């Protein structure tokens, strides 16, 4: 899906090209353009692996190591998900990214009335440690790193991951989990929030502070520009808002007396790759540079490796269309190319059928194959940052940088991201952009092949993943068995301890690990937090 606006004359010649970020693209670039934006190799690029890391955080890029592939996976009960994990790993996938169903994301047990119709639907249902034991059975947790797409209750799921790893006999020092743990972006887009802003940010902090001490191979936060962009933000806002969210989390830990050098090396990001190829590449190159700059200038970070922007740059779902769904296979290939040209360390693609529902195994494998073809057949591992030095790319990278800084300054002026989200400012901005974008599509100024141009009429049916109503019944039966078999008195005692820990403002992680090991349920643990923290009331944005 293209997102740039093309103004044409009557003969279909392009008169003007305007990127979503507002950058106007010239027909020809040359050395003068670099002069105009004040481009300087040492200052703006540096060698790969050197500050400001515009060209990448590793001196040899993909020559030393290909990217990690991490398709978003999970549905039904833990049994189904475990089978899909094993299929993907057996086919060369190098990491996992767990999709949880909505009740789990919202901290509800599968038999909660609010969970009705949703159990196992958009991800795997998890109620207790029993489910993780099944989901991760037969997977080497010291070799495979696992992303956990969980936010409001990231603390609970990270605790459960530690509990399952220890139960399987792995060392907690060696397991590598990346809980998403980015609640502010849930409040901006995606919407899986529970608690009010302040306690929610505190839980983010608990997760990070605990990991720094106890789980040295885990990345306790993945700040997601991705979903903000999916909600309608421009690429500039995507980066600017994500960095300001990260700054809010850093502030939370600094307030606890920690120095950023102790923890920022463990931050990771999740960014979106869709839209104009060149704009994406410029965005990521500018982002690496600005993140390093932000940490050094704003937070006084000294350690070189703590300045790295690490993360998953993945193909966005909002670029996919229901119309002519096979076209999404081709779009995915170009997103993968954009990610590779941007130096993504970890990547994933939405599968071609995901405009409809979660992917079939065939569609998921096709995404994985796309990533493998880009890395192993096409030549993207040949040399680092292959577009560096292009008059065009370097000029727009500088322009992106300026625009991101402007957008970050707007958030600073509002008193930081916590305020900007609590007041609804960011949500309003993003909704406005989404509306403008949609109007551009409907007027035909933005082209989407198969949707507003080259339309075929009837869309051919594709084979789709089918939701099985029996998954919910199976899951609820298994949950009830867990409740019968566990030591309920011990669970109650631990839940009380969790409550007093939460009220006292102490780190909730250690007692959550104990709760998980005693088979307390997700609904019970989250229930304690609901009791102590209450629930968020969204600001009205209309």
């Amino acid at each position: 899906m293209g997102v740039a606006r093309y103004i044409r004359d009557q003969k279909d010649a392009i008169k003007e090209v305007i990127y979503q970020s507002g950058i106007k693209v010239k027909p020809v670039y040359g050395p003068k353009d670099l002069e105009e934006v004040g481009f300087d190799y040492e200052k703006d690029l540096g060698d790969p692996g050197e500050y400001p890391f515009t060209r990448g955080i590793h001196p040899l890029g993909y020559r030393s190591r290909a990217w990690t592939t991490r398709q978003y996976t999970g549905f039904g009960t833990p049994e189904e998900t475990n089978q899909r994990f094993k299929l993907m790993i057996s086919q060369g996938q190098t990491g996992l990214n767990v999709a949880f169903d909505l009740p789990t994301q919202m901290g509800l047990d599968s038999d909660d009335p609010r969970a009705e119709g949703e159990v196992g639907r958009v991800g795997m249902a998890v109620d207790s440690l029993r489910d993780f034991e099944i989901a991760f059975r037969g997977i080497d947790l010291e070799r495979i790193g696992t992303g956990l797409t969980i936010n409001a209750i990231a603390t609970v799921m990270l605790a459960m991951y530690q509990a399952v790893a220890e139960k399987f006999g792995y060392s907690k020092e060696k397991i590598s989990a990346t809980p998403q743990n980015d609640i502010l972006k849930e409040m901006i887009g995606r919407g899986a929030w529970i608690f009010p802003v302040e306690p929610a940010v505190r839980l983010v902090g608990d997760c990070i502070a605990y990991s720094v001490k106890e789980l040295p191979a885990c990345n306790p936060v993945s700040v997601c520009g991705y979903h903000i962009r999916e909600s309608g933000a421009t690429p500039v806002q995507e980066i600017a808002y994500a960095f300001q969210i990260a700054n809010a989390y850093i502030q939370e830990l600094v307030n606890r007396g920690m120095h950023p050098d102790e923890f920022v090396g463990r931050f990771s990001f999740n960014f979106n790759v869709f839209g104009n190829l060149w704009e994406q590449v410029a965005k990521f190159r500018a982002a690496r540079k600005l993140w390093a700059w932000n940490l050094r200038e704003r937070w006084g970070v000294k350690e070189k490796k703590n300045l790295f922007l690490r993360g998953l740059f993945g193909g966005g779902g909002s670029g996919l269309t229901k119309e002519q769904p096979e076209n999404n296979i081709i779009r995915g290939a170009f997103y993968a190319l954009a990610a590779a040209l941007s130096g993504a360390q970890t990547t994933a693609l939405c599968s071609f059928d995901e405009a409809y529902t979660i992917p079939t195994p065939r569609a998921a494998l096709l995404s994985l194959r796309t990533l493998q073809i880009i890395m192993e057949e096409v030549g993207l591992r040949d040399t680092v940052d292959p577009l560096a030095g292009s008059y065009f790319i370097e000029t727009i990278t500088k322009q992106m940088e300026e625009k991101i800084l402007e957008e970050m300054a707007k958030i600073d002026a509002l008193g930081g991201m916590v305020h900007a989200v609590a007041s609804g400012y960011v949500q309003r901005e993003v909704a406005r952009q989404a509306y403008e974008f949609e109007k551009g599509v409907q007027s035909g100024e933005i082209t989407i092949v198969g949707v507003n141009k080259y339309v075929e009429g009837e869309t051919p049916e594709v084979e789709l993943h089918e939701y099985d109503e029996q998954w919910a019944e199976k899951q609820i039966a298994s949950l009830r068995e867990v409740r019968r078999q566990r030591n309920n008195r011990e669970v109650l005692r631990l839940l009380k301890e969790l409550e007093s820990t939460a009220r006292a403002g102490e780190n909730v992680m250690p007692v959550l690990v104990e709760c998980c090991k005693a088979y307390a349920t997700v609904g019970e643990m989250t229930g304690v937090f609901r009791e102590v923290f209450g629930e968020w009331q969204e600001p009205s944005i209309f």
Partner: protein
Amino acid sequence: MERRIKVLVAKPGLDGHDRGAKVVALALRDAGMEVIYTGLHQSVDQIVRAAIQESVDVIGLSIMSGAHIPICRKLMESLKKEGLEDPLVVVGGVIPKKDIPVLKEMGIKEVFPGGTPFGRIVEGIKELVSAARKGGEEVSDGSCQVHP
């Protein structure tokens, strides 16, 4: 003068993807309608209550998670239980074609899958409301004579 059409845009259930809901809300407002957005995580009861309080002409549900059939069934039952026949219910989101007849069978008036042009949603709602008002006026004219 025609009374302004009042629409409750609602996000039922746990799904938090509300880009579509917000965009459609803005489009309906630009078309001159009065729009109320419920915000996320609404139960069917909360939506029905809001519809009663605001006495809306239309309830527009936005559902992306795939749970549209159980949610719509519950909402339609709840409306019937409350004796609320007035609000016209329309649905948008990720709705497979094969489910559209099932939804209409339940009494959903119109389904606007993701990507439906704004113009078609606006016109669709206007037509539904004006048809309903015409039908309603005949009835209310009659009852007015009895209860002035």
